[in-house]
């Protein structure tokens, strides 16, 4: 009687939100809020590794700086927030 319910995800018409994997969510989030593309002192734009970007995000949000996409970081990325980037280039 305690079988887990087998969830079926459907695509809801008119839904702006898309079902994303955690990795897809992280990539989008890090890019959108400025953690992936960092301008250096010579004004050159360079991509940083996902681990570095995650560490930077974790520092900004006061999370443990693991550089890994752990549960706390994923949860933080799902929180409602302001659309202004955290890292400005």
């Amino acid at each position, binding site marked *: 009687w305690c079988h887990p319910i087998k969830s079926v*995800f*459907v695509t809801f*018409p008119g839904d702006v*939100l898309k079902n994303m994997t955690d990795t897809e969510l992280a990539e989008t989030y890090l890019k959108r809020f400025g953690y992936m593309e960092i301008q250096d002192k010579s004004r050159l734009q360079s991509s940083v590794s996902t681990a570095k970007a995650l560490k930077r995000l974790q*520092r900004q949000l006061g999370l443990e700086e693991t550089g890994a996409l752990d549960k706390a970081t994923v949860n933080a990325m799902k929180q*409602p927030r*302001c*659309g202004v980037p955290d890292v400005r280039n």
Partner: protein
Amino acid sequence: YQTFEGDLKWDHTDVTYRVLNYSPDMEETLIDDAFARAFKVWSDVTPLTFTRLYDGTADIMISFGKADHGDPYPFDGKDGLLAHAYPPGEGLQGDAHFDDDEFWTLGTGPVVKTRYGNGEGALCKFPFIFEGTSYSTCITEGRSDGLPWCATTANYDNDKKFGFCPSELLFTFDGNSNGAECVFPFTFQGETYNGCTTEGRSDGYRWCATTSNFDTDKKYGFCPNRDTAVIGGNSEGEPCQFPFTFLGTKYTSCTSEGRGDGKLWCATTSNYDADKKWGFCPDKGYSLFLVAAHEFGHALGLDHSNIQDALMFPMYKYVADFHLHEDDIEGIQYLYGSRTGPDPTPPQPRTTTSSPVPPPKPTGRTPKPTPPIVPTTTPVVDPSKDACQMDVFDTITEIQGELHFFKDGHFWKTSNGGNGKHRGPFRVSETWPSLPAKINTAFEDPLTKKIYFFAGKNVDNITRGKFRDPRRIEKLGLPNNLQKVEGALQRGKGKVLLFSGESFWRLDLKTQQIDRGYPRFIDQTFGGVPADSHDVFLYKGHFYFCRDRFYWRMNSRRQVDRVGYVKYDLLKC
């Protein structure tokens, strides 16, 4: 705290803002109030002042929008991104945008302000008891006209206090119908509609016609959301339909089944599988006040902070008793300095304190607890001078948010936010000692807060209680033979239109000179109002032209949208 690169900030402290549109989630007055309180958060700790403009370009233009809303940064539906704002500067810079796929509240669930009824516009009290049953939403039970209502106290059966809840049957907002209710059915592009629709729009907002035929009359307004309406999805504005069938299973409440994000949703017809109509269930929503205060921080030059309790931290967190964090204060004062001096309170007439409520007579029985008696101020002038007995006023104008009615050395005032009842009479000579008894026109410059008084051929202005010597109106560039100025309309930044007879002039308040190209004829610019109005003034973004006991109200598109009595509509006699 952080500021934007180059410490972007406004180069003036008298910052202006304008609300371009409203959300269907809350009453306009509640939204206005949330924004005003959000600005006050910053003006309390800096020398900044915030003045609302009703037309023209303001420093901070505020709007609600969904998904792609006209800038390069689209919103993302419900939750996730809530709002964004741009750092200070020209054009889009300084503007604040709020995602209208969110459910905007004061942070603790639907805020339902009532209209009509006998609840005097109070908020709904949820839950409330009606005929022994407890209700947590507006209901149509007990009515045959389908208008949703709620009690404004916890027990309707005892107190009989109620008001009507926002619905398209009661009013619309924005649009061009001055808040008129929807007319159903209505015709749009030959089709008949029995409810609000998003057809014909790309922004997802629900609208309706306010006459039976949009195609011929072109009259429309946007539909307010009912408190029971779903958010987003493809059925915004519809209520959940319980039970509903989803993938063959019946649901009697909102569910997160079928979604990977855990959000609660419901169908708005009895069968999702067949109809595919759905929306998110109403929740506590996001505090418009808190989000606006954060966004206005950006609009003033603050970037995100990494202090979790700071207002400028990027993530939303509801707090009931909000106080600005030291980090935010340091940040904004780094840009603009700290506030000095006392509160800029206006001069007040001499008053006495009295109680409007007579003390209870002793009866020998245990007295019921009574609400505290609030002292009120009563002016020390002849109370027999009743504004409701006046047919025509010398001038009417809005000063410091209150509408002032001047007549023969006295004035009365009525505030925007109160119950609309007027106060007074007050003596002009006690508030503004150097003014003559007869004032033909007065207006307040929204930027400098200077108040200008025109009396005959003289003009005085007053700032922070200090008068300048009166000047002749010819010094402004008005003609020598002009006997008086009879009306004034503030237009955008630093300009005001002055009316006399059938002509008007535009005064540049900075140069204190009439602009070139004037006078112009009133009837050529303001069609449909009396060309010989004896008073003209701006109030809540509308132009008012007075003639005899009546006023003609004109909107910013220069359409006369109302003609009424000064006494009943403005003074609430």
